[in-house]
């Protein structure tokens, strides 16, 4: 009985691989996306700022395209994350994930114009730019509501203020390790989904993000998801985001005449 109660609360060990809901299949025409993901420009060496830091900016924008599942290499008929991950679900996150996949992500907060969240913005089809100042890294997005995100650079690594107010994007502090920007994020509200498929989070979520521009057109991304209230151990997801030379961001206000979410009825 105790075992059942604890299991219900998510404290028992999984036996065998978790039964994951199936990929709902290609509802996006594959032809809409592949050319978005791989630009035709010829890559040069990764640029650097005058002081030697990696330069994540320039005349253009980063565009992830649609990567619906950060733990699968294909999702809804197109390339998704770079690597498959056996996600160490707790029972409640497995159930939530399966429910969301099966009901076609009908309760997706991002579809209601709420912030796309971290790390999801690195997997969703919103172009963005990265602007580096001495003590900050500013991310500006075209979607969902012309969103921005600020990472505060700390010379001594990660120190978050105490008693953080829970937020969608969390409190982000970063530092450079050679050519990699490392960002430590905590203080989340637990409402954001990690991806469109529906990997859930709690307010205990702690992320370590690693951004590396491996050549002028390529941004390699690794994110370690450490959320002891949602997953039995930390796990890491990977994606590659491509540079679109010359791309400029246009204002996009999701909340303007938003009429889509009422039609999202699942199945």
């Amino acid at each position, binding site marked *: 009985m105790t075992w059942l109660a604890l299991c219900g609360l998510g404290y028992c060990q999984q036996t065998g691989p978790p039964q994951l809901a199936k990929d709902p299949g290609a509802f996006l025409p594959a032809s809409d996306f592949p050319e978005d993901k791989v630009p035709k420009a010829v890559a040069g060496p990764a640029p650097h700022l005058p002081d030697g830091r990696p330069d994540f900016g320039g005349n253009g924008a980063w565009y992830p395209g649609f990567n619906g599942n950060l733990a699968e290499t294909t999702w809804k008929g197109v390339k998704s994350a770079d690597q498959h991950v056996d996600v160490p679900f707790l029972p409640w996150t497995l159930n939530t994930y399966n429910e969301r996949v099966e009901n076609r992500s009908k309760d997706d907060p991002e579809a209601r114009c709420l912030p796309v969240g971290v790390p999801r913005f690195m997997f969703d089809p919103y172009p963005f730019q990265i602007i580096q100042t001495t003590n900050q890294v500013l991310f500006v997005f075209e979607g969902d509501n012309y969103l921005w995100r600020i990472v505060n650079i700390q010379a001594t690594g990660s120190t978050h203020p105490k008693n953080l107010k829970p937020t969608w994007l969390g409190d982000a502090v970063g530092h450079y390790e050679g050519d990699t920007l490392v960002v430590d994020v905590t203080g989340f509200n637990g409402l954001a989904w990690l991806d469109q498929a529906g990997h859930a989070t709690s307010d205990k979520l702690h992320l370590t993000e690693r951004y590396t521009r491996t050549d002028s057109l390529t941004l390699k991304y690794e994110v370690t998801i450490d959320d002891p209230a949602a997953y039995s151990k930390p796990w890491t997801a990977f994606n590659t985001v491509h540079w679109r030379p010359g791309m400029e961001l246009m204002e996009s*206000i999701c909340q303007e005449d938003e009429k889509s979410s009422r039609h999202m009825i699942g199945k």
Partner: protein
Amino acid sequence: MKYFVFLAALVVAHAQIPRLADGHPDLGGDGVWLPAHVPDLALNANIPFQGWARAKFQANNAAKQDDPVLGCLPPGVPRIMLMARPIQIVQTPNRILFVYEGGAHVWRQVWMDGRDHPKDPNPNWLGHSIGHWEGDALVVDSVGFNDRTWLDDAGHPHTERLHVTEKYTRTDAMTMKYDVTIDDRGAYLRPWTSSSSLSFHPGEKLEEDICLDKISK
């Protein structure tokens, strides 16, 4: 003694306008700008309303529940500069970015690369903005607005013909003067001006404030 050092520091801070390597004023720095709250852009002046615009202003003013910002839509320009919500300004060689805590968690870009406005801009909430320096003043010229925002809390209306000229002058380390000209021949008989100011708050950071959190639960 501590108090004296503090005062002396304040005097020094006031005396200097921080500058970038290229000599232009640095509108950024480690901190945020807090604009004064200006509920009514008219500042008691006589506004050269066209007839319909006066009626629309009076209707808006009497129907604050119709204020578009209550639906979490972006406040538009110049209202986003009048709401007493923190702002950060980030200068890059070819554009200046304004990052706003209040309103709808939006940002705005001012092109400094010498380009012109597009011929037929898609009307939007924050317009299309190009800027240049006039001495130490950043002058921002914006067109391409939709007609769905109010110019201020009071409800001054505008049309898609709105043309806003803003002038940002950092007069010392702690202060910025803000002058704005409203030119909208669809709503007003001639251009009219207003002004406000912003104060710098060193070391402070923008916080996340998602308007929809307050209305979607």
